[in-house]
């Protein structure tokens, strides 16, 4: 990266463009991105940070707002719902991540070996279909599939296979122990194709000769995967782990639609708690909600930093 920059700097030094001219032109190209990015991403995040140090309640329209320093954070550290919310999110992440990473990796390896180009395209297109369906519609579909009384999954288990009766069939989305695994399966279904494409792009960069040489040496498929393919997929794997860790910890749509605000349910995580505090409970204590939002974000950043550190030490 640094090397590239120096090279291009040298190249631009030869140009007729003055530094000022470059500044104006190039920043003009960045302007649209910056307006939106600063206005609706950076500023709101900082504004939320600022709010988290006050005692701002949206519905207390007449009351003056005070600067309370770390009072909200101190409260949050004593609030079992914050801890429980983070733990629940972490539990979902732990269920969600392995399937979201390893299933696509295996599928990618299999698709990569399909020699017939037409078939290979067909597999890819089919796998990508769910990634073209908007999230809320994925949830609508799966709430139907999981329906206790009239869903096709329980129809299979109760009426066709006779494994359960209508009294003891699995309550996929209602049973506190089943709801996270059920949601994780839904997410895997949704993300399978998209993540497979990441691994396929990685596989395409592995020179074929490596495999041939290994085969000549008598290595079996498993050893080839383990010693040739897997090490070369590791960078992609780690990027995906970090990105999907971020997705899983901050899940909220699914919980808002299907989980509700019953605090005993596992889907009442820190994200739902933040929403509940900021837009629903009492006087809409948005300053406390802001603190909860930042605590969640910081907890995630710490883990991400840890992941990057792990990732660096292996290189």
């Amino acid at each position: 990266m640094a090397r590239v920059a120096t090279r291009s700097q040298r190249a631009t030094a030869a140009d007729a463009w003055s530094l000022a001219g470059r500044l104006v032109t190039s920043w003009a190209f960045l302007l649209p991105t910056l307006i939106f990015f600063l206005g609706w991403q950076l500023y709101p995040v900082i504004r939320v940070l600022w709010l988290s140090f006050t005692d701002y309640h949206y519905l207390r329209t007449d009351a003056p707002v005070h600067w309370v320093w770390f009072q909200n954070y101190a409260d949050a550290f004593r609030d079992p719902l914050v801890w429980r919310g983070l733990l629940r999110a972490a539990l979902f992440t732990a269920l969600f991540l392995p399937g979201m990473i390893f299933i696509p990796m295996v599928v990618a390896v299999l698709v990569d070996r399909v020699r017939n180009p037409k078939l290979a395209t067909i597999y890819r297109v089919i796998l990508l279909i769910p990634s073209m369906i908007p999230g809320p519609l994925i949830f609508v579909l799966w709430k139907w599939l999981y329906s206790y009384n009239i869903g096709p999954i329980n129809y299979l288990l109760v009426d066709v296979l006779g494994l359960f009766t209508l009294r003891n069939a699995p309550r996929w989305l209602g049973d506190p122990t089943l709801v996270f695994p059920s949601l994780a399966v839904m997410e895997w279904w949704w993300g399978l194709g998209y993540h497979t494409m990441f691994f396929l792009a990685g596989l395409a960069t592995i020179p074929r000769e490596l495999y041939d040489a290994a085969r000549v040496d008598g290595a079996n498929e498993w050893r080839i995967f383990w010693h040739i393919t897997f090490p070369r997929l590791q960078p992609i794997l780690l990027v995906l782990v970090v990105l999907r860790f971020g997705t899983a910890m901050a899940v909220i749509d699914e919980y808002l639609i299907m989980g509700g605000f019953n605090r005993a349910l596992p889907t009442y995580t820190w994200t739902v708690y933040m929403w509940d505090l900021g837009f629903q409970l009492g006087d809409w204590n948005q300053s406390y909600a802001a603190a909860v939002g930042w605590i969640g974000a910081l907890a995630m950043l710490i883990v991400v930093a840890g992941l990057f550190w792990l990732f660096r030490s292996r290189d």
Partner: protein
Amino acid sequence: MTPFVEMQALIEAGVIEPWDDYMPQEVKDDLIPSIKEEAMFDGKIYNWPFLLDVVIQGWNKEIVEKAGLDPTKPPANWDEYLANARKVVESGAAPFGCTFDAHGWRSLVPITHSISTDVYTEEGLFDFTSDAAVQALEIMKQMMELANPNVLDPGTSDGGVNDTPDEGAFAAQQVAYYVKYQNAHIRMAATWPDPSQLQLAALPQAEGGAGATVFWNTGAALFTYGQNKELAAEYMKALTYSEDVFKESIAGGTAASGQLPVYTSMWEKWKQNRLEWMADWAFLVGDQLPMSKAIRTTKYGVTQFNLGQPHWEKYLKGEESDPRKAMQAAMDAVMAEVQKSG
């Protein structure tokens, strides 16, 4: 806007203003008193009521008949209700005897109101620890033994509030008796091969109880910064007095949206001169209004039930054997949040 859900928050945020200056006096006087009370806050009318929900009971006549019970006779009290539901299960007429919606305002409070309506604290919060509420919880526990096993699970849309398990069970004809607002019964029965097998009635009474229920309106609020407020009032008046709208609502099949008149004069007119598209259930619901009671409008109108539910459910799930303790915990949870969030 539904008064007990969001009215106070909207008023405090300064987003809405009262209808008083725009609603004609004769309309104000025509509002059914219980509805008018619900629409008011601090002595002013903030909600122009529009869609009406009343919690009642309904049953699947086919199943009830199969169980050897009289399909036209409503169970008069909760004991009879439970006995009938038990008979449905034991006779094998349906897998489940009765069901309800686990959200407090759709089951716990209406059943409580059937016993007593004097169950609110000074601040207008639901008093979980009142005798009537505890008794209602015990009735629910007995109902649960005869209900679909997922009855306490959250719904799968709108924050768990809608598409609830009771609806699926009633639509799939897996259950005989059903407590919820009228619209749910009608909507689900519309999916049966023969929707006329639905029968509705007032909630069962409790021995010496109040015999009331819960209703709520979804109405129009007047936005402070809106324009043409006089025109809005004229439109609302025309809409809420329009017989065509009610015809679509009452006789419109699965599209029935639960809109019923909120004016005394309309009901009186209909009783004197019954129109051909009128359904019995509409009168049934109308008759409930004078004695039923809305949940009090507070900032915790809905959230008090979100907060209390995990605690009272401990009794329903058998994790807590004393209903009073469970209800006390529910009350404590609400009060703790009130102190914290104002």
